[in-house]
């Protein structure tokens, strides 16, 4: 059974938001009580709240910081407590990046211990500080400490955006597998750009989450 709260955390730019969006949309197909919570109070551009209307149109419940504008105040809305405290609801949390971004999660830690949660470390081994197992281990430690929560799994997200190929996924996933072994954490799933899913096929033993990009640069819109 899925745990009531599924958190996506990880270093800056590891793909937490895209993963959380795609995961929440997929989950919501089976369970309409799913709510996606934007708990990222450190990212300034290309963040969940820019696409929340689009997600609502798809029928997803979304909670974002109340100040919808483009300001960089670390403020969260009390609605988040409502969502996390609910008895029946299922919640997907998009946490801020790295240790500073994870700090806002700390206030919920004792509550989450009670209701149960899954926390996934999203790893892209093509990002500067997580190209090695040691780097991934360091990120895991720092974010867990800062959020006062424990990771339950890794999410493997090896990609170079438009330049992702099977080889890129292969090489990157290998590093995440090695980190999974070292950390004693399973890989919950592997993210694969939607248009590459067919090509990837049955190549890996882990489940696959097809990723559709939502956060686009202005010239891609």
């Amino acid at each position, binding site marked *: 059974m899925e745990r009531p709260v599924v958190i996506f955390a990880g270093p800056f730019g590891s793909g937490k938001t895209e993963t959380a969006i795609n995961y929440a949309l997929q989950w919501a197909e089976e369970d309409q009580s799913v709510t996606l919570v934007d708990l990222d109070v450190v990212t300034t*551009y290309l963040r969940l709240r820019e696409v929340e209307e689009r997600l609502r149109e798809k029928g997803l419940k979304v909670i974002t910081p109340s100040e919808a504008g483009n300001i960089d105040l670390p403020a969260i809305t009390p609605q988040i407590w409502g969502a996390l405290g609910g008895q029946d609801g299922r919640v997907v949390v998009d946490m801020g990046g790295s240790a500073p971004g994870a700090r806002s999660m700390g206030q919920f830690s004792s509550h989450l211990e009670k209701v149960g949660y899954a926390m996934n470390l999203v790893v892209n081994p093509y990002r*500067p500080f997580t190209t090695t197992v040691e780097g991934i281990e360091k990120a895991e430690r720092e974010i867990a400490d800062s959020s006062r929560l424990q990771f339950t799994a890794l999410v493997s997200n090896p990609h170079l955006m438009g330049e992702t190929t099977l080889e890129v996924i292969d090489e990157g996933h290998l590093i995440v597998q090695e980190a999974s072994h070292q950390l004693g954490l399973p890989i919950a799933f592997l993210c694969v750009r939607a248009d590459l899913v067919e090509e990837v096929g049955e190549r890996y033993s882990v489940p696959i989450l097809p990723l559709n990009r939502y956060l686009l640069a202005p010239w891609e819109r």
Partner: protein
Amino acid sequence: MAKILMKGNEAIAEAAIRAGCEAYFGYPITPQTELLEYMSRRMVELGRVFLQAESELSAINMVYGAACAGARVMTSTSSPGFSLMQEGISYIVCSEVPAVVINVMRGGPGLGNIQPSQGDYFQMTKGGGHGDYNVIVLAPATLQEAIDLTILAFDLADKYRSVATIIADGMIGQIMEPVELPEIEPPKRPEQPWALTGAKGREKNIITSLYLGGPNLEKVNLRLQETLEEIKANEVRYAEYMLEGAEIVVVAYGTAGRIAQTVVQEAREEGIPAGLFRPITMFPFPYDRLDEVAKSVEHLLVFELNAGQMLEDVRLATRDRLPIHFYGKMGGVVPSPAEVLAQIKKIASPQQGER
């Protein structure tokens, strides 16, 4: 792994490190803070100097000091912080010591907002601080280009003993792209007999920007102007896209240049003969080449994330010989390619009507 996925701010920081930046001084400001954060981690790892100053004023003066000592030195900031640095930049230029300054621009004027903007074009290309001077201004449109231009900025600063800057808007700082970083090798720097390295066994060096009395300050100014002429003669850079047979040419740089490239492609697909001229050096501005390009086209469309600042240089380059249209957005608003395409269609439609 050859390629790595980086954020613009990180890419500029890592490029500076690869270029042999020995000292970084800065003060956090959105949307460039990741640059400072990245430096705080990597510079310390490498045993180089990282210092978060108490303000942009002290940061730029620390840069001045390190530059006088002959260090490869850099600071980075965003618009309001760049304004604060103007006095120091003027001093550095007058003292003829090399330094690199990164400006990841945000919406202004005033405290403005944290969204992308190109509102500092005048300030960056026309001097910015007091006195007769210009700084070198390089405008990346992709993250790979941001890396290459950051490395170039250090070399140009050394070559001309002046300040080289990167003019990046917040979007360039914040987007992520796969990039390739050059291998680390010791930077090739010119001799620095002027540097303040301790005068033991040699004549003492004096670096100053104060020239009281007599014609000395005029001499310094004449030399600075000579340097600027050399820069104008040697360092003009630009990119051209689909100019072949183009009748409407968009002139844009940075994020606007990137959007314009998408737009030109879409216009061509719809049969509109559009092209793109993208200045890479905003100072020295590619006046001559743009004038040449304008001779064979019917319209120019200047597109900027401001009220029309580069527009003045485009008019100067072409002496207004052809219709120059302008499309700009201010206050951190970034238009979609569709909005810019609509501008091109507006220019093209009377012609299409005749056909």
